[in-house]
């Protein structure tokens, strides 16, 4: 049998167009990636375009959601762990939470809906697989189901007791960062996988941001490496270094200095807004951000090589 080429239109778009077209005020948006592959570039573009009233879902809101909350895009968080990993709290978010019903700034308090890590993963899983709930052995004898009445008990139909359930989470838009994709959106990731696949399949619309677009033949040479098919991708955005200050396995390291720097900046509302002016509103996009970061800092984050080795799929004809 000869070539069976798929006719696929390229989905490559600019970050500006992808965010403008696919993220709408009031949407539920999930920028996923557990410590690895966090699309700061997409988060910044959402701030820059002054989207409003978003519900932001993410296991670990991290610095990117702290910045987005500071930028005024969010009305609610759905999460499982709220912190600056290894450093401390998320100060912009805490200001919007601890102030009580109305924050000092006059903004309404941020609404919180919280789970555990596995609860959030289960929510994406139920969303991705069209299940009305996902069962799990968490939450027994804790105050979490009282704080969040969407965490409910469910009885086993086999008469062996009760477990807990979480409801499906289907983001309007999921955004993930990856090492590479084809122009059609077939996406490959290595290193930590987090819950990107579940969040991607759960979403109504999906933006994949990549370090590089590669020829389809590179994807097809290793199909087990593909975590997301182009079928569910709405836009492929090429944004090298788009995950900084988080990292991309094999491409660059986490910029820990920025995680430390953000703590004092974010403790002060004026300093926070000045940072947003300088690094988000004041820049056209990620290319300018990388330029502003400087070649030296970028170079300092590059790892040495650690090749995976090759496996053979076999040519069967």
């Amino acid at each position: 049998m000869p070539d069976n080429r798929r006719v696929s239109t390229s989905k490559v778009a600019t970050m500006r167009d992808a965010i403008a077209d696919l993220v709408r005020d009031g949407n539920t948006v999930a920028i996923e990636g557990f410590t690895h592959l966090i699309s700061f570039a997409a988060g910044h573009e959402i701030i820059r375009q002054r989207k409003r009233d978003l519900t932001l879902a993410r296991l670990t809101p991290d610095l990117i959601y702290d910045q987005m909350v500071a930028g005024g895009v969010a009305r609610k968080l759905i999460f499982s762990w709220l912190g600056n990993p290894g450093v401390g709290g998320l100060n912009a978010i805490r200001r919007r939470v601890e102030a009580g019903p109305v924050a000092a700034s006059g903004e309404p308090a941020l609404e919180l809906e919280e789970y555990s890590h596995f609860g959030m993963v289960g929510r994406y899983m139920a969303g991705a697989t069209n299940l009305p709930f996902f069962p799990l052995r968490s939450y027994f004898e804790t105050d979490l189901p009282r704080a969040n009445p969407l965490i409910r008990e469910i009885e086993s139909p086999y008469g062996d007791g009760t477990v807990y359930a979480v409801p499906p989470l289907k983001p309007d838009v999921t955004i993930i960062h990856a090492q590479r994709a084809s122009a059609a959106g077939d996406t490959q990731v290595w290193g930590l996988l987090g819950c990107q696949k579940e969040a991607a399949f759960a979403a109504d619309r999906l933006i994949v941001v990549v370090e590089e677009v590669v020829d389809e033949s590179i994807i097809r040479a290793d199909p087990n490496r593909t975590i997301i098919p182009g079928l569910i991708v709405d836009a492929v955005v090429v944004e090298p270094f788009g995950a900084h200050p988080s990292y991309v396995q094999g491409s660059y390291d986490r910029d820990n200095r920025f995680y430390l720097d953000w703590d004092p900046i974010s403790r002060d509302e004026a300093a926070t807004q000045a940072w947003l002016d300088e690094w988000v509103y004041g820049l056209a996009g990620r290319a300018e951000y990388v330029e502003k970061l400087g070649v030296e800092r970028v170079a300092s984050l590059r790892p040495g090589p650690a090749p995976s080795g090759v496996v053979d799929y076999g040519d069967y004809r």
Partner: protein
Amino acid sequence: MATPRATAFSQSEMMIVAAARELAGQRVCFVGVGLPNIAVNLAKRTVAPDLELVYEAGVFGARPARLPLSIGDPTIVTGATAVTSMFELFAFYLQGGLIDVGFLGAAQVDRFGNINTTVIGDYDAPTTRLPGSGGACEIAINARQVFIIMRQSARSFVEKIDFRTSPGNLGGADNAARIRREQGWLGRGPSVVVTDLGIWHFGDDGEMRLDSLHPGATLEQVRETIGWEPRIADDLAVTPAPTDEELRLIRVELDPGGAYTK
């Protein structure tokens, strides 16, 4: 100018061509091996170039270098876009609602497109033990629509199936639509049955209706190979014979050994 004489073709070839043409405009297809595999690949080369193929075994975007001999042939893996575990294939792709068309065959089908692939006779002491569901029951429920391909015979097109493995239009369309809505199915059920004799679509009442008779087939043959009084369309068409290009694709590219199309 002489009219070109049509090339001779087999009943299997006519079935494949008719099924392929029904795929016009479809996007994502769940592929089984055998006739559906050839039909889908023919459609991709003719009426549906954008068709995406999902194999039950966990392969998306297959580009087989030869006609796959089984649903899990290594040739569908090498050069594919993605390989997933069966959990992910059934959970994310099928139950998740990404499949537009699923193909099913059957040992028995009734007028409403309900399907039996489990047993002939009593379940606990069967006359013939059939393969069972495999993925069929979940395809019938979760694929947006279902295409049935099977040869007609009095043993297979029956008034009452012995076991319902995969639901079709249940007892009729109204009832089926209500139940699907209440139970939250993504599938709208069977939309076409392609046989060796003709093409059946499902009417508003959920019963299959012969809309097109294949060239050379007769209504007498149709009635002899069916266990109920079949509904025949007032404007019964004759299926256009396979074109030379369709036959060339089948014979030269898709099934050069004639394994499925003799």
